[in-house]
């Protein structure tokens, strides 16, 4: 993989910038800067959470109105991307390629505060941090991501995750699971436990299984198996995954892949895990007891704790939003974006209405952030509410030169989300004439996944 040419790119931007500084009078460049709602002083926007959603919101508010005072609060100095972190676990990618800091946002004039929010006073519009800071806001962007709930599985707890990783928030957990997977003996079992939906990154568990199988093939551990114990009866991009497993990993026709390298156990077939014997790395459901060599439990999750504590997560544990602006249904001054929100009718896999709510992906979080940023800047400047556009593209790389994607688009009609079916859908399983999909399609999408990652990281953080 060649080195990213970011230095040249930044040079190009810098060149454009200095050239422009000479030729355009400052008055033509700088916006007036929205004033605070209480009159006087700059308007203040506070962003909670420096993931894809929060970073994008901070950047885009600043881009649209440099006069607004923007503060991003995030406890970590380095962000590790969840998208494509499965490639780190399977040894296909260095973790450094999915990490970024916050210098890019700082250069854009965003105040980045490395701290942790412990409370939001909605009446006074004040955010309090663990470090003892109190920040007033005119608009607050709430992008805290997810909070794990361990209590659905007996014997499971946060303490156990240092031995049985979730790797569903990327970073140390990603490396821990990688280390365990690399040490698996030939013939070993890698078990992935999937919680009931909706969960962050709908295709993630199946992509992880695919790349693990790919690792087994390349490392001479051909007797290893990856078994997905799934609380759900269907899953994201199922037709595409099954096709890929048949093509590459010996998936058989019994629908579960019993004798193949990848096996998928549906919730109704015993995949619904409710018990863990951590000491013996054994998980159980009503029908199945399974001992793993490497065990990866993805805990059930809901909106981040601060969103819950602030009284915003009233839609079955998730934050309901106003479609035009991404403002919270509970508070017009708070914008709830990213994985913590539910935008549209909540989808349950196997339900014919599935796909009607927005999937919990980085890409969606970013388009939600851009909608929120434009709505905030418009509101603070007394401009009309802009028309929102929401889009998602999510790539799954599942083998050598083998990737596919799903796209979603949403608009807002009469104040409600409208799923744009024509601009959405998965990569083809068969061509329109029912012939097999040429290999080049899968190769292209595997390549696009990398380009996508680099661009979303830059569009959010730089």
């Amino acid at each position, binding site marked *: 993989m060649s080195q990213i040419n970011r230095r040249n790119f930044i040079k190009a*931007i810098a060149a454009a910038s200095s050239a422009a500084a000479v030729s355009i009078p400052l008055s033509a460049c700088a916006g007036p800067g929205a004033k605070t709602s209480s009159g006087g002083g700059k308007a203040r926007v506070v962003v909670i959470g420096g993931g894809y959603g929060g970073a994008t919101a901070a950047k885009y508010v600043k881009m649209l109105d440099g006069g607004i005072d923007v503060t991003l609060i995030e406890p970590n100095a380095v962000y590790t991307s969840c998208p494509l972190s499965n490639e780190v676990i399977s040894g296909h990618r260095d973790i450094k390629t999915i990490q970024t800091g916050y210098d890019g946002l700082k250069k854009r004039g965003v105040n980045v505060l490395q701290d942790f929010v412990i409370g939001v006073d909605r009446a006074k519009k004040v955010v309090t941090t663990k470090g003892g800071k109190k920040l007033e806001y005119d608009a607050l962007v709430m992008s805290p991501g997810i909070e794990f709930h361990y209590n659905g599985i007996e014997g499971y707890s946060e303490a156990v995750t240092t031995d049985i990783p979730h790797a569903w928030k990327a970073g140390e957990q990603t490396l821990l699971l990688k280390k365990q997977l690399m040490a698996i003996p030939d013939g070993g079992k890698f078990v992935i436990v999937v919680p009931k939906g909706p969960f962050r990154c709908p295709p993630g568990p199946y992509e992880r299984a695919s790349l693990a199988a790919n690792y087994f093939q390349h490392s001479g551990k051909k007797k290893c198996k990856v078994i997905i114990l799934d609380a759900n009866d269907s899953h994201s991009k199922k037709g595409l995954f099954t096709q890929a497993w048949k093509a590459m990993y010996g998936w058989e026709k019994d629908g579960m892949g019993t004798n193949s390298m990848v096996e998928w156990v549906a919730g109704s077939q015993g995949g619904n895990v409710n018990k863990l014997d951590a000491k013996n790395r054994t998980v159980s459901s009503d029908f199945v007891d399974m001992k793993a060599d490497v065990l990866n439990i993805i805990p059930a999750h809901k909106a981040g704790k601060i969103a819950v504590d602030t009284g915003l997560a009233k839609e079955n544990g998730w934050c309901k939003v106003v479609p035009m602006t991404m403002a919270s249904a509970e508070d017009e001054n708070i914008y709830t974006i990213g994985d913590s929100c539910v935008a549209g009718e909540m989808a349950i896999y196997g339900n014919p209405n599935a796909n009607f709510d927005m999937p919990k992906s980085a890409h969606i979080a970013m388009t939600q952030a851009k909608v929120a940023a434009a709505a905030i800047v418009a509101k603070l400047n007394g401009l009309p509410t802009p028309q929102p556009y929401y889009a998602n593209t999510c790539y799954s790389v599942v083998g050598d030169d083998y990737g596919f994607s799903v796209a979603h688009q949403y608009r807002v009609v009469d104040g409600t989300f409208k799923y744009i079916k024509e601009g959405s859908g998965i990569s083809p399983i068969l061509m329109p004439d029912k012939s097999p999909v040429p290999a080049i399609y899968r190769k*292209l999408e595997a390549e696009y996944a990398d*380009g996508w990652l680099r*661009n979303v990281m830059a569009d959010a953080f730089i």
Partner: protein
Amino acid sequence: MRYKLLIAMAALGLVATPALAADPIQGLVNTCNNCHGTGGVSVGHSMPSIAGLSETYLKNILMEWKSGARASANMTRLISGYTDAEIAALAKYYAKLPWTPVVQPVAADLIAKGKDITDRCETCHGVTGGKPDDEETPRLNGQWAKYLELEMLKYRDPAFQMTHKKMIRNTQKLDQGDVATAAKYYGAQSK
């Protein structure tokens, strides 16, 4: 000229113009920038920069994807969610931005070889790919080499439905081993 530059700078976030927040085109453009880079300048090797390509080229390719005349692994799906008027507006918007080559330097002998290989491309794209002969032809200088290589693979693969007969013919004349070299040659050009 100043207006053009101002729009370009706003696209890259170098100037703040709150009025853009309420501009409908801004919302549409935001959906493209995730994959094609802030302001349409890509940092992803397999994704093309789109800022500064000609309006005719952009509109043609988007409409060909929408009609299904031209294949794409993903754009055929995505673009079908946009109206013809929105597609025209997007083409116009990105065409107004300056072309920003992202120069990817390679060794001198590779440049020499690349120049030789791309002899047949010159008539339409110009010596460096930076001076297309007409509005229907894209700029190639400083475009991502990886992307250009993948585009040529598409033209060379009979299973992939491309529309430009001359491009199909000419890319198929290349030796397999020369495809990446031709792509790198254009990626290395600043002008």
